[in-house]
């Protein structure tokens, strides 16, 4: 038995990643289009952070008749009332928008009183009210945060590597974000502030992966000046492959613990992250690097060679 098991992973893999980049690109483009279509038709299930409104979680000491809650709260002249069962039969989650122009906070108190009247002995472990102005700001800030994050990361890659690599990373980032949004849209997971945090973390993770591959490519381009770009990409991806797999696995394991016991609020976050880790790993190999074949970076040696040629010309 060989141990550590890292030895089981072949040390010199020679997968022809670039060979499959065309079919992979088609798959990516199709998935991106599907995600966009889903986002525009099914839409995202925006939570109250971005839509505004109120969520009240109620826990009684005995099981509660949800139909009755639905009826009584439904008759309260509120807008968009939704009553869901929540974890246990004695719990309910009530979402609503206050009547036009009414004070949201006073409406919460009225709903609480009504729930108390339906069956006494109720507690409210969570109450959230987000006014329309605040939800609008949260939305703008969330979009701004994503935009600035992408911009800064791309600028960093551009200064540390090459413009083309910056471009490769921006395509990979757009790919990751679009697919994650598509995933959120198809699963109709609650899109909240935490989702923005998850998206930003996915950006960070995906870039981390991309940087590791690019870093190796830069090194290999200096080392093997004559090697064609496709071969460089294959070599670099293979050389960093065991690291890519191990890191994806440890991150996956960490998230697994959270998904199993982290509770409902965290589950949306961790499921999104799990998806993002997978997509981020894939995109570093199959999006960021192959884009470079479309728009190859200038290679130091070739640049120098071109100059001497030009100089030599009369």
């Amino acid at each position, binding site marked *: 038995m060989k141990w550590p098991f890292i030895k089981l992973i072949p040390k010199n893999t020679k997968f022809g990643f670039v060979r499959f980049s065309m079919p992979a690109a088609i798959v990516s483009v199709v998935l991106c289009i599907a995600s966009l279509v889903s986002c525009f038709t099914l839409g995202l299930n925006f939570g109250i952070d971005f839509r505004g409104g109120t969520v009240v979680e109620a826990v009684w000491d005995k099981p509660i008749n949800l139909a009755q809650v639905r009826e009584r709260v439904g008759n309260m002249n509120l807008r968009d009332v939704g009553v869901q069962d929540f974890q246990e039969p004695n719990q309910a989650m009530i979402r609503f928008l206050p009547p036009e122009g009414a004070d949201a906070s006073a409406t919460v108190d009225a709903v609480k009183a009504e729930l108390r009247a339906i069956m006494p002995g109720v507690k409210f472990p969570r109450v959230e009210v987000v006014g329309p102005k605040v939800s609008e700001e949260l939305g703008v*800030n969330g979009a701004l945060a994503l935009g600035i994050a992408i911009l800064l990361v791309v600028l*960093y890659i551009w200064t540390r590597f090459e413009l083309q690599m910056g471009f490769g990373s921006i395509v990979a980032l757009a790919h990751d974000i679009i697919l994650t949004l598509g995933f959120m849209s198809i699963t109709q997971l609650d899109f909240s502030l935490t989702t*923005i945090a998850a998206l930003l973390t996915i950006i960070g993770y995906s870039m981390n992966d991309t940087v590791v591959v690019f870093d190796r490519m830069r090194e290999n381009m200096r080392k093997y000046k004559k090697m064609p770009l496709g071969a460089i990409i294959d070599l670099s991806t293979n050389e960093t492959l065991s690291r890519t797999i191990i890191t994806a696995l440890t991150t996956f394991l960490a998230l697994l613990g959270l998904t199993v016991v982290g509770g409902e609020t965290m589950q949306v976050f961790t499921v999104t992250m799990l998806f993002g880790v997978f997509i981020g790993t894939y995109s570093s190999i199959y999006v960021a690097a192959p884009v470079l074949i479309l728009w190859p970076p200038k290679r130091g040696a070739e640049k120098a060679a071109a100059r001497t040629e030009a100089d030599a010309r009369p």
Partner: protein
Amino acid sequence: MLHVARWRVLAVIIVSLLGLIYALPNALPQSVRDSMPSFLPSKTVNLGLDLQGGSYLMFEVESQVVYKARLEAVADDLSRELRGQRRPGELGSAKTPILFAGRGLTPDGQVARVTIQNPADIPEAIKRIESLASPVIGLTGPTGRTDLDVKAVPGNVIEIRLTEEAKTSMTRRAVSQSIEVIRRRIDETGTKEPAITRQGVDRIVVQAPGESDPEKLKRLVGQTARLTFQMVDETVSPAEAAAGRIPPGSILLEQPGEPREPQVLVRRRALVTGDNLTKADPGFDQQTGEPAVTFQFDGAGARAFARASTENVGKRFAIVLDDKVLSAPTIREPILGGNGQISGSFTIESANELATLLRAGALPAPLKVMEQRTVGPELGRDSINAGATAGIIAMFLIVAFMILAYGLIFGGIAILALAVNLILILAAMTMVGATLTLPGIAGLILTIGAAVDANVLIYERMREEELAGRSTALAIDAGFKRAIVTVMDANVTALLTALILFYFGAGPVRGFAWTLSIGVITSLFTAILMTQVLVAAWYRQTKPKRLPI
């Protein structure tokens, strides 16, 4: 080749020890922390409201109301100026009167307008109105600007607006005053350490940890509590008033809890306001035995009320709180002592609350709840437990995986670096007073998963270098040197996104950004410096022929 500078070894030892000392109080029960010698740190990490339970309330100061009040005052004073009357205490002869009409505020209350009969008088009218303006005081002293913008518009109309500087300064003052009033109110109730902070230009955030009742907190903080004493207008019968025949200078107000007289017509002008109170206490009505609030006026308030009550014996006055009539008693005899009592439909609790509000004073402008997030303490405890369990599971899985992947020695080194990393994150968060939230715990666990990445990069590189035919020592050395560049590049991008999250995120998400950004920095320390020291130590001890990975 594998020489590690002594300062590096020292730095690793010192930082790890300091981290342990600062992180330790978090693991100790309160009783032990209290009995520790004072030179040891005893601070624990701040828990967010989502973990310890509590209420987060964000209010917006409705500064429009303050602007409107100022313009109303200007509209009142302007008639005296245009008529050419002397101001109180002003010497010299009266000026020539200017004829005007249609004085008042636009419906939104943000512009005062007056129509001048004779167009030739407009320049003089503007001059007189401008003399009503007062200088704007900025943050650093007088700004040299005044608060009124007076200009003529077609139709012989003069429009008066507040300048932007004036609005800014009035809003700032209203917010500061509101914060002070809120603090006084909350202090009176003895609620556990609520944090009251200004946010942005016109917002106030109140965060109250623990079991506090959010509804009571909202009533306590959000109520304007502007108390006024106004004469009841009895020139028109209640039926006529209800039909809409309201004399100028009067206003119809609701009287909740008094079904026999749901509305009362009162004079707009207040005889005395709550500003003139020196005392307010809950008590009982001596005749009916019902809960009531007793109060005492200050000197000026007592004098004003004595004069008004003397002049109006037999008539009624109304005690008005936030435009709602509490009671409207008849003045039986002049009230000279400056003491009084407010009765109405109070319970003991609501009398208590009103007394508290009156003692703390009125808010300069109404507050509107923009955002409220309340988490019960039990849910918070559940979240902490879930987070801790998730962390232990994640840690266990990763420990098992790393040992499987890299063997006892290199896997062990990575795990030791990871453990120190977690301790350092906790210590750093405790030291800088960062807040740990539920997403923050998720960030911490995610850091566990991602922090081994640096170790993995370094180990993989060593493996490759050895495979390329270098000696063990050279492979270790080259592994570090080459991998560090990659580790840095990879971590800078992670840090960038974490910092953006920190800047834009609110509340719990900011807690996530805290752990993530601190985690990136500490993992650079543990993965690079600490791993290097440990691997070098291992090498000197065993002088291996081959790397065990």
